[in-house]
């Protein structure tokens, strides 16, 4: 057996932790954008994915995604249920061997964040139990197969997009972002608009929280993209540099649009632009040169800034713009590879995009990969969402939505410093409006003859 490469293994394990951190980062990014009364639900929709998907991944997810192909590049088999048979195995090219378990841990984090991304589209209105069920079913019938299509290389016998079509998706522009964005669009259609949208205001309640989330996403994304080299090498380095410069360029692109259109560049726009750039560079980070990454970032930032306004014209309450950022940004990044693939960059294997004299071939492959993932994910997400809505119901009651989903679904409220309910104001000092523990003299059942309140 060839020897394990310790440097590569260390990088992949560290990258796995970085990618895991993206999901709490996403939770904060989304959580800051919702209102005070639904921030905990938004955080929990994301954290729940960390719980549910981890279990599914070990049980059968890894096997369906990454064990030997069973059917025309569409799905893996049952060889590695429970991760059995992977414990001593190594994977990777000679000289870059890492434990299969390190690879499995790394890929698990991708499987977690993909369904989590969808949550922003249906903020404030999804039953928590129904969301958990959706995550479990969608991850099983959509994410695991699509990860097999896109990420499973097996010497020509792997996933159909990876090994057959040979479309480039280095770190998941299609498998993660187009996939989640298309599912988000489907759920928006199944669940419908929030009460009052778009007439009423749904102002973000904590923009600094959004920026904190964006910062954690940005930081974690180096694991997502550079970690996808599965080795601590030059491929990881180019992916790392492209990730940084595309995020920066997209931040600039987004706020330029705001400056020209609205008169002011916003903090929310800056954070959104960075994320849009990170999404767009994800598929392309190992196939474009840094100058290409700047172009790709600028385009992605500007296009996504314009795309998020479309929901008002179309009447879709994609609450936190999952479609406008992840579907549009992911598709854009994947398709732009067809133009910007630089044959001298390691990840292309010598293939050139249109602007580097490569003709339309790769562009067509990229477009086909995007379309296949988008259609598959949209159709199945719609079907799963529809089935849940028709059986156990997917939406909370109108009353719960108006009163706030945090108290309705979780019996919690996020903040305790509102004037009449919090701990800081005069009302709170008097216990007015806030729930409080019964005083000792109130709590003597013999004297009052009543039950202890609360």
């Amino acid at each position, binding site marked *: 057996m060839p020897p394990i490469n310790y440097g590569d293994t260390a990088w992949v394990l560290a990258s796995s932790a970085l990618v895991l951190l993206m999901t709490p980062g996403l939770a904060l990014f989304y959580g800051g954008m919702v209102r005070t009364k639904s921030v905990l639900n938004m955080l929990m929709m994301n954290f729940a994915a960390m719980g549910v998907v981890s279990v599914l991944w070990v049980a059968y997810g890894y096997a369906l995604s990454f064990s030997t192909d069973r059917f025309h590049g569409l799905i893996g088999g049952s060889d590695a249920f429970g991760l059995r048979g992977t414990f001593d195995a190594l994977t990777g090219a000679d000289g870059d061997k890492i434990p299969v378990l390190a690879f499995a841990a790394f890929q698990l984090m991708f499987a977690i964040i993909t369904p989590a991304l969808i949550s922003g589209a249906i903020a404030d209105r999804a039953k928590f139990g129904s969301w958990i069920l959706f995550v479990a079913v969608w991850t099983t019938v959509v994410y695991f197969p699509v990860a097999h299509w896109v990420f499973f290389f097996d010497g020509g016998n792997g996933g159909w997009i990876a090994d057959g079509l040979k479309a480039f998706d280095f770190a998941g522009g299609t498998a993660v972002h187009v996939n989640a964005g298309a599912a988000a669009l489907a759920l928006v259609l199944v669940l419908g608009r929030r009460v009052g949208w778009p007439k009423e205001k749904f*102002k973000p309640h904590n923009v600094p929280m959004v920026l904190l989330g964006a910062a954690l996403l940005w930081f974690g994304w180096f694991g997502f993209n550079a970690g996808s080299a599965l080795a601590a090498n030059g491929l990881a380095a180019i992916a790392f540099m492209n990730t940084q410069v595309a995020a920066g360029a997209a931040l600039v692109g987004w706020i330029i649009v*705001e400056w020209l*259109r*609205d008169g*002011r560049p*916003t903090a*929310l726009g800056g954070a959104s632009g960075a994320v849009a750039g990170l999404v767009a560079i994800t598929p392309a980070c190992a196939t474009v040169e840094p100058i290409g990454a700047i172009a790709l970032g600028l385009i992605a930032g500007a296009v996504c800034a314009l795309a*998020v*306004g479309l929901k008002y014209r179309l009447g879709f309450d994609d609450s936190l713009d999952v479609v406008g950022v992840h579907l549009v940004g992911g598709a854009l990044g994947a398709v732009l590879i067809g133009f910007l693939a630089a044959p001298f960059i390691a990840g292309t294997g010598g293939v050139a995009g249109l602007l580097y004299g490569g003709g339309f071939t790769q562009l067509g492959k990229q477009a086909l990969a995007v379309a296949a993932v988008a259609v598959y994910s949209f159709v199945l997400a719609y079907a799963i969402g529809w089935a849940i809505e028709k059986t156990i119901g997917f939406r909370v009651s109108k009353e719960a939505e108006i009163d706030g989903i945090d108290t309705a679904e979780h019996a919690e409220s996020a903040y305790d410093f509102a004037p009449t309910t919090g701990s800081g104001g005069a009302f709170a000092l008097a216990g007015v409006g806030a729930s409080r523990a019964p005083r000792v003299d109130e709590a003597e059942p013999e004297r009052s003859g009543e039950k202890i309140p609360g």
Partner: protein
Amino acid sequence: MKLVTAVIKPYQLDAVKEALHALGVSGLTVSEVQGYGRQKGHTEVYRGAEYAVEFVPKIRVEVLTDEIDVDKVVDAVVTAARTGKIGDGKVWVTPVEDVVRVRTGERGLDAL
């Protein structure tokens, strides 16, 4: 007795408090309020969508005073709260029938 109520810009609170203190006013009550007058609110933009923020944060100051000092109190508040810009607020005076100091039970002017 009179109740002087002033709705002012939050930043002017310290100046108003100092001016009243200089007059010898021994107590006042402040509260955070929101509202709009002629200046209306302002517009905020999130991801290109405009939100009209109609209610502007203000501070309400309430001072009890006797009838002799009421004009001095009003002048002090108005002078201290004025910036000359739209949105400086309003001050109004209402008659008060009775006042009781909770600790001692004193009533009327003795309770001020």
